[in-house]
């Protein structure tokens, strides 16, 4: 039997303001923050006691004690405890991938409603037992006799009290994400000025969105924080130009301003079939119509670590029968200003599009005035898995405000992966 495919509606979202690492959420765990974001979503859409089809969420930095993180958060919430849930992890693609997984189940008619989410803390980081110590303890557990166990003690070293700290580092290259992006920026000739200009724009647009109350039905305050803590509007090229590079050596172009800071936060999105929304009188903001993931070989073929969205996009566009210019709004996740600019340059480049994407013509340029119009990750901060939900809810609201139109999302992720998706306004694509 071929299942029929239904339209998947975005009803809305809720997130907590994003905080800088070791800021106001220093003592909040992933489950605390995800619960806070979910509480606000339940409140906003009257989901108390509601049995939701399924909830999917995840965290990039996840503590081993958080087995079934999402399900535990559901059990502590006002949702019906019969709501199933599962955890997702795809680096910074986690949030959008969770949305896609839930959307696909709704499209296939397996569930009628679902919640997607993501959360990350870099403050309450999951330190693990030192790996050498862990091995000794496991060996001790396997050793039957006391003498054998005592012998194992001779392997103990003082340095083993140092825990294993999660590193923002690619296991196969030993380079951090920023260092990888600095290589990309240099290969694509992305200037410091272009990165700083994009950064200023991100902050100013997010500040404007707050000032006109646009964020009010997208978030609930948490632990005294009402706006994203990283937001610093009104900067200038001159001011940002004074910052020292943090990636790519002394000649590097990437700074603490044009790279996202380590952040803490959580987001959730409510998705449903049209019938489910109608039965509850919940207005539909937008529909999720397409999505795609891709991955690149950044290890042996030396593709840029964060270039995968450039590959995912044409595959998705071809399937949707659209061109890159057919969108009214573009949401390109600003992991680093340089990542956004490299991606745009790649789509414009005939050689890249021919040799890497196998296309006769480049995808072409976009009107950057339509990009990240309500601010991006550079301003809001980027709690890894929470970014996808922030972008989906914000884009759906923007498309709803416009009455019609189409938007596209592009998110890069660690390990050479990328996730893209298309949303259409509930009022139609055009």
């Amino acid at each position, binding site marked *: 039997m071929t299942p029929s495919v239904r339209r998947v509606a975005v009803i809305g979202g809720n997130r907590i303001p994003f905080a800088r690492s070791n800021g106001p959420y220093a003592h909040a765990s992933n489950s605390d923050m995800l*619960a806070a974001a979910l509480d606000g979503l339940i409140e906003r859409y009257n989901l108390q006691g509601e049995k939701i089809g399924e909830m999917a969420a995840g965290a990039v930095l996840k503590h081993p004690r958080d087995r079934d993180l999402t399900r535990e958060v559901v059990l502590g919430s006002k949702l019906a405890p019969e709501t199933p849930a599962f955890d997702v992890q795809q680096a910074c693609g986690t949030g959008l991938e969770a949305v896609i997984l839930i959307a696909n189940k709704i499209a296939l008619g397996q569930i009628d409603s679902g919640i997607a989410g993501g959360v990350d803390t870099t403050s309450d980081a999951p330190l693990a037992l030192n790996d050498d110590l862990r091995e000794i303890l496991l060996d001790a557990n396997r050793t039957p006799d006391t003498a054998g166990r005592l012998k194992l003690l001779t392997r103990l070293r003082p340095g083993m009290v140092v825990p294993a700290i999660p590193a923002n580092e690619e296991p196969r290259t030993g380079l951090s994400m920023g260092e990888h992006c600095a290589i990309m920026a240099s290969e694509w000739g992305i200037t410091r000025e272009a990165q700083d200009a994009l950064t200023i724009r991100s902050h100013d647009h997010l500040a404007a969105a707050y000032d006109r109350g646009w964020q009010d039905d997208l978030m609930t305050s*948490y632990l005294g924080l009402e706006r994203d803590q990283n937001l610093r509007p009104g900067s200038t090229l001159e001011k940002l130009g004074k910052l020292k590079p943090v990636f790519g050596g002394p000649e590097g172009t990437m700074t603490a301003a044009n790279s996202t800071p380590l952040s803490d936060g959580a987001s959730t999105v409510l998705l449903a079939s049209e019938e489910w929304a109608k039965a509850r009188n919940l207005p539909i903001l937008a529909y999720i119509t397409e999505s795609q993931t891709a991955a690149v070989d950044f290890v042996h073929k030396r593709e840029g670590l964060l270039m995968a969205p450039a590959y995912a996009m044409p595959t998705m566009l071809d399937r949707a029968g659209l061109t890159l210019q057919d969108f009214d709004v573009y949401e390109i996740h600003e992991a680093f200003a340089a990542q956004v600019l490299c991606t745009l340059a790649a789509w414009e480049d005939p050689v890249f599009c021919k040799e890497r994407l196998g296309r006769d013509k480049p995808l072409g340029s976009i009107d950057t005035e339509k990009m990240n119009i309500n601010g991006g990750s550079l301003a809001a901060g980027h709690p890894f898995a929470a970014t996808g939900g922030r972008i989906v809810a914000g884009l759906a609201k923007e498309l709803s405000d416009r009455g019609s139109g189409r938007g596209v999302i592009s998110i890069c992720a660690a390990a050479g992966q990328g996730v893209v998706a298309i949303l259409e306004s509930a009022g139609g694509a055009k």
Partner: protein
Amino acid sequence: MATRELQGPPGIIPLYAKAALPMIPGASALPFVPGSGKDVPDLELVLPEVTFDPAALAAYNRVCGFTLRDDVPSTYIHVLAFPLHMALMAEPNFPFGAVGLVHVNNTITQHRPVSVSETLSIKVTASKLRPHAKGKQFDMVAQAKAGRTIVWEGVSTYLRLGKGDPSAKKPKGEELADPPVSATWKLQGGLGRKYAAASGDRNPIHLYDLTAKPLGFNKAIIHGMWTKARCLAALESVLPEAYKVDVQFRKPIPLPSKVTFGEEITKDGIRFAVKNARKGTPHLDGTVVQVPAKKR
């Protein structure tokens, strides 16, 4: 009634020291030592501006099992009011020392959820002494306001063991079956010290076996208010927005312990109980009933 406004929460440790002095025979005759009064003082203590420290709240939530939400657990406001309980009991004309009092009952009414960003004013008074079957009892009555709205009320009943009044024995109500067990909790030996650090209630009976012994306990016992908080944490997803939660503390829980938590949810409210996992010794009985919610 006299009202005394405090600038900040009084330090608990000196208060405990003062509260323990009446244990020394004759000390109550001294002017600064509690124990001289015939009844509890007619005094109201007020903390006019109480704010929440998210780090302290997070530590409290972790030890009690609460999720760190933007709304604070109703038992946490008791923690903020507790220094006032202690200060009142350390008054020179307080009829006896606080150390050695038994917390027998605690009722909290949450009229609406309180956000961590709110500023509250908290006042505490004491009710008159009244007879109890095993001594004398009185209530510490606390009230928290946000602006002019009463958002939270707490009543802690303390028993001073002594010459009782058998006629004060409560008539036995209808015996209800134990609520079915839904969870088993393992309480570690250091739990009293952890809760003491998170709540500020450093009564020596909760800290070490050695410090509990002189006060008549073979082992350190966990704070009754921890047990109450742990129960509310277990019920967090089913608590109404506004509710009254009433618990009776039965036999103290020695540490370490393994206890069971039982709950029964009906349309009238929630009944819950904590018992020793092996022997079934009753430790706590409680109920939650919904009350009309006030607007934020």
